[in-house]
């Protein structure tokens, strides 16, 4: 299996009121194509920050990030946006669907941004049908249950067929039943599409669905990741 993501001594600091806060300190990690990786650890350790850096939603202060052997840290905003658009899909804990758009429009939006000429409507309907949401395609997100919203969010993330799917606490707002359903779906996607999945969770039961688990711990004030 080829190495798709390589993080070398990644550091992220934030300056607030002239005081520097370290969110992530010298964190190193490598992920192979087709991996399903869970990042666990206590709250505030920097799991989400790490995930955001991997997904080019945020950028590191120091260190090296290689995606497919391309140095992401040397890319400009435009290049990072292109990389994000082409290779990454996201699921957030709070689903983050656009409230005034229907479920169908939300899912189609990702496809429209990737390829404006593609017929996003039929593709979106197909994927919503796969996720059991075909009866709700014209509903607004606030008319759906949490589980349905998270499935819609997952449909939006995978409709572009990303190489890497990033999930930040995907089961955080779901009940036990829906959480297991979500994890099973993610595992299925990983196996059937060979999509690399990196998810952040503090629930070890959910982490057990993954092939690998990385735990982040604070050692001497530094967030260290180990398997």
């Amino acid at each position, binding site marked *: 299996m080829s190495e798709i993501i390589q993080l070398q001594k990644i550091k992220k600091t934030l300056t607030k009121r002239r005081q520097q806060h370290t969110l992530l300190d010298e964190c190193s990690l490598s992920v192979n194509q087709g991996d399903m990786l869970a990042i666990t650890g206590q709250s505030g350790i920097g799991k989400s920050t790490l995930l955001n850096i991997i997904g080019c*939603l945020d950028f590191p202060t120091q260190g090296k990030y290689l995606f497919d052997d391309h140095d992401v840290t040397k890319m400009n905003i435009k290049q990072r946006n292109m990389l994000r658009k082409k290779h990454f899909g996201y699921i957030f804990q709070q689903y983050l669907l656009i409230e005034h758009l229907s479920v169908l429009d939300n899912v189609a939006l990702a496809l429209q941004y990737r390829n404006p000429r593609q017929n996003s409507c039929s593709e979106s309907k197909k994927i919503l049908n796969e996720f059991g949401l075909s009866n709700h395609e014209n509903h607004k997100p606030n008319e759906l249950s949490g589980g349905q919203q998270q499935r819609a969010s997952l449909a939006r993330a995978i409709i572009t067929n990303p190489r890497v799917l990033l999930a930040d606490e995907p089961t955080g707002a779901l009940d036990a039943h829906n959480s297991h359903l979500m994890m099973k779906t993610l595992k299925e996607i990983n196996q059937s599409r060979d999509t690399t999945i990196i998810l952040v969770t503090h629930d070890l039961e959910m982490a057990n669905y993954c092939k690998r688990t990385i735990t982040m711990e604070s050692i001497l004030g530094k967030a260290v990741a180990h398997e």
Partner: protein
Amino acid sequence: MNSIKTVLKGVFSQKTRAVLTGVSTLCAAAIITCLVAFYHTATDFMSDEIDRINLGTKIHLHIMSGEDSTQQLTYADYQQHIQGQFHPYNTVASKTQHTDVQLNIKDQQNGFYENVITNAEYAETFQIEMNEGRFFNKLDHPYNRFVVIGHEIAESLRENNPDKPLDTMFIGTNEYKILGVIKEAARGMFFGWHRTNTAMFTFLNHSDGGNIPIDQVSIQVSNPDDCPKISAQLTSILSDKFPSVRYQIDDMGKTAQDLKSYLFKIRLVFCVIGFVSALVAGVNICNSMFAIIAERSKEIGIRLAIGASAFQVKSLLTAETGTVCLLSSMLGVAVGEAISGLLVDYIEWEYRWTIESSVIGFLLINIISILSCYIALRKINRMNPITAIQNTQ
């Protein structure tokens, strides 16, 4: 089609914001359109008058009526001392009287007039088409003697000859063709115009004998720069030859200059008000855009996270604001035109509608809104998706 749908969805999702932006744009467009329309109505009228004056700049010498002959200037005096002194410019002497037409008829002035003019109300009453224009000034028209009869007198004169054509008038036993009507808009330009409704007549006379006292001399000075020189020359002749005559010299060239200066000031005031209105509108739209970005920060972050480029997000928000501004500015232009029409009507000016006011109002407000959008949306270029999402979470 999809893009239009997306834009409209965005507009309707932010109804309150869209209404507020729309109302402010509508008001700004209405103010600017109204200003431009007013600017035209007010300044075109003056500008035309300046052009008319400049076309044949004149100096008018008005002689005040005196009690004895030493305080009067006769036609013979004029011929001897004034006529031909201002070469290459022509001079004309005239006598103007304001009195009652019917009295003059009784005074057996039949056959004295060469032409008859009435005012616009006459043509309106009988619904006939007649020439419109200025007929008072002899230098503009070669008529020696003409009478202006107000419509009330004109209508009463017609009653005596109801079968005659409507464009003719009988004074005494003489039939005259009515030369034309004086436009209502020209009313304010003539002293004593209000008297034309009941009675007013003016006759200009330069060939009825040397002993007739004259009360006006006009010198047609085509080059405005020569006006001060001509005025000085005229003053010098009057002080040397007719020291007891009281007079007043009206320099129309100077009047045109004064009008020009007023016109410039009026234009400046209009431009300043227009600029301030445009600035206020721009700041308002810009402020509205900043508020939209702050309010929709989460949505912008989500769009960026799922693959939209900053350009795509900016285009969407610009299209949404553009749609609101486009529709409200169209409405604003219509409102502005209506308000300016009503106001001009109320203050009894002549409303001069031009496409220019609508085009300027519409274009200016849309350019301002797009520029304001652009300034406000530059923020998105530097926006980090995750920060944008977290800001509103």
